């Protein structure tokens, strides 16, 4: 197991280096970043001075190596807008994003799996077709539109929940629902199809004919076997949840990394853009690694370590 974790760690490191390199390449291909910071009236001498201050007068390869070593030491530099450390800005906002992402994840799972299983057990009925239709619509609704509709419904029309802000559990409700809907739709689809597959296997018939209670079969045998594809789906969809949280955080004024990324991209605040992207990638990699370990615990057949 140690060997497996080590291998995954090295893979993740390679991934991070590639992502960081792609971001570096893109930022440097896009012309002279100094022109963005300097005032339009700055003279050539001023520009040259600024360039050397930011180390931009050196060749690309030298800058790339410098940049990599800085990122490796988690030195992202100061924000071009607020002059704060980019790293501190991102770390300060990390908890808010984690809270939002995990509550969306939990909500989508505890609502999605029962609906998906119910749809599979009642295949061909109106319950099933309703569940399928709703999951299709859920996957076609853009996250920000869901968020707007929810604010309109529960913040304006029937004002029972705060339309934006951060702090109390009530503030968490609308952002969590908006963020979880896409994931929930996916989970319903996957749970339904994997449950159907398990149901078609002969061992379910055997259990039934042995007289084991329906509930026991459902929980102990069907659920356990059907949950593997659901876990895969969770790991695949996590990046969409984080992607969606950029939007949800912006709409609800939720002070997380996603909102920071959108704001800093709007203001072309490169150090903050790099730092936020770095931590989002890191978070997703850690999450998928933990899920991979979790797999083996649930199902010895797919255990990736010996």
């Amino acid at each position, binding site marked *: 197991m140690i060997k497996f974790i080590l291998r995954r760690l090295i893979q993740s490191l*390679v*991934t*991070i280096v*590639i*992502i960081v390199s*792609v*971001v570096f390449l*893109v*930022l440097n*291909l*896009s012309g002279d970043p100094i022109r963005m910071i300097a005032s339009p009236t700055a003279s050539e001498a001023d520009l040259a001075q600024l360039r050397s201050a930011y180390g931009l007068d050196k060749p690309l390869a030298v800058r790339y190596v410098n940049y990599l070593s800085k990122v490796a030491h988690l030195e992202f530099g100061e924000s071009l807008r607020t002059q704060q450390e980019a790293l501190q800005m991102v770390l300060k906002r990390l908890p808010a994003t984690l809270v939002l992402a995990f509550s969306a994840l939990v909500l989508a799972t505890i609502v999605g799996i029962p609906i998906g299983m119910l749809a599979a057990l009642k295949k061909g009925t109106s319950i099933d077709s309703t569940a399928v239709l709703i999951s*299709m*619509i859920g*996957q*076609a*609704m*853009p*996250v*920000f*539109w869901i968020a*707007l*509709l929810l*604010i*309109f419904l529960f913040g*304006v029309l029937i004002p029972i929940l705060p339309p934006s802000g951060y702090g109390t559990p009530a503030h968490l409700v609308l952002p969590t629902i908006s963020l979880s809907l896409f994931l929930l739709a996916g989970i319903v689809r996957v749970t339904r199809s994997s449950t159907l597959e398990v149901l078609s296997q002969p061992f379910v018939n055997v259990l039934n004919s042995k007289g084991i209670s329906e509930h026991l079969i459902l929980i102990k045998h069907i659920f356990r076997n059907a949950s593997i594809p659901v876990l895969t789906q969770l790991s*695949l969809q996590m*990046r*969409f949840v*984080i*992607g*969606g949280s*950029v*939007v949800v955080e*912006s*709409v609800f004024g939720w002070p997380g990394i996603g909102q920071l*990324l*959108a704001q*800093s*991209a*709007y203001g*072309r*605040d*490169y150090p903050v*853009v*790099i730092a936020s*992207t770095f931590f*989002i*990638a890191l978070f*997703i*990699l850690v999450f*998928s690694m933990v899920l991979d370990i979790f797999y083996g615990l649930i199902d010895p057949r797919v255990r990736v370590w010996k």
Partner: protein
Amino acid sequence: MEITKTKRREKGYFGVLVKHPLALIAHIILLLAVIAAVFANFFPADALEQDLMSSLLPPTLHADSFPGAASSFPHILGTDSLGRDLTARILLAIRISLLVSFFSVVIAMIVGVTLGLVSGYIGGAVDNVIMRIVDALMSLPFVVLAIAVVAAIGPGLINVALVLGFTGWVTFAKLVRGEVLRIREYSFIEAANSIGCSSIRILIKHILPQTMGIILVNATLTMGQMIVSEATLSFLGLGVPAPTPTLGGILADAQQTFFAAWWIMVFPGLILMAIILSINIIGDFLRDYFDTSEAGSR
């Protein structure tokens, strides 16, 4: 939706389509969207003309009656805070949305299919490098990647299409590579090799046509994703800038007039949802039609 091979051969695409009402409706909705996009500028009201006298008018079937009204055509879907006709703006926004997503899919397809063919056929170190890049980009949310690139090159119509295209190629590369690995084992490839066909000829003439189904399915599903991404970027102010109307941009404006005007928020979202839903359904239909279960595993 089970579509057998014999059925496909006997009835052709439309023969199969008419037997699947949901897919048929999806095709019709997408066709309507394309028609709306093409003929958007023939709509009698102007999408950009401001008329503060008609600001925030609710949907109506009656034309403005006060003297000096800018338009003699009724505001079927109402007006926005600057008195611009919402119907005209949405029609133009559909055009922008379809244009941007179409071109970004074409870019993603060209880049991804080329790299996938190369990666799968050459193998070795080239394959390894390309696939590590694919894995790395796939672990990042698409929107986050696009936002980071927009931060670098700035917003704008062409930039958004480029950004989405050059960040969306990875699924194509991964799928095509897998197909190449499968197909190159067939004996007809060996035969082509032994009669002296060049690698490029084998790739383009013998392998590429076999992967067309999977490419088409993935292109369809990617198109839906591109439409969402363009709308998201525009909603965040990182996409196509004003005054060009976009579905995301109109929805961002709708936030300002929440209390007064529900129609600005409802209609663009409904249209967006209808288009994406149709594209997803068409993608599923194509997947069954070409019988390619691996495609579109996003």
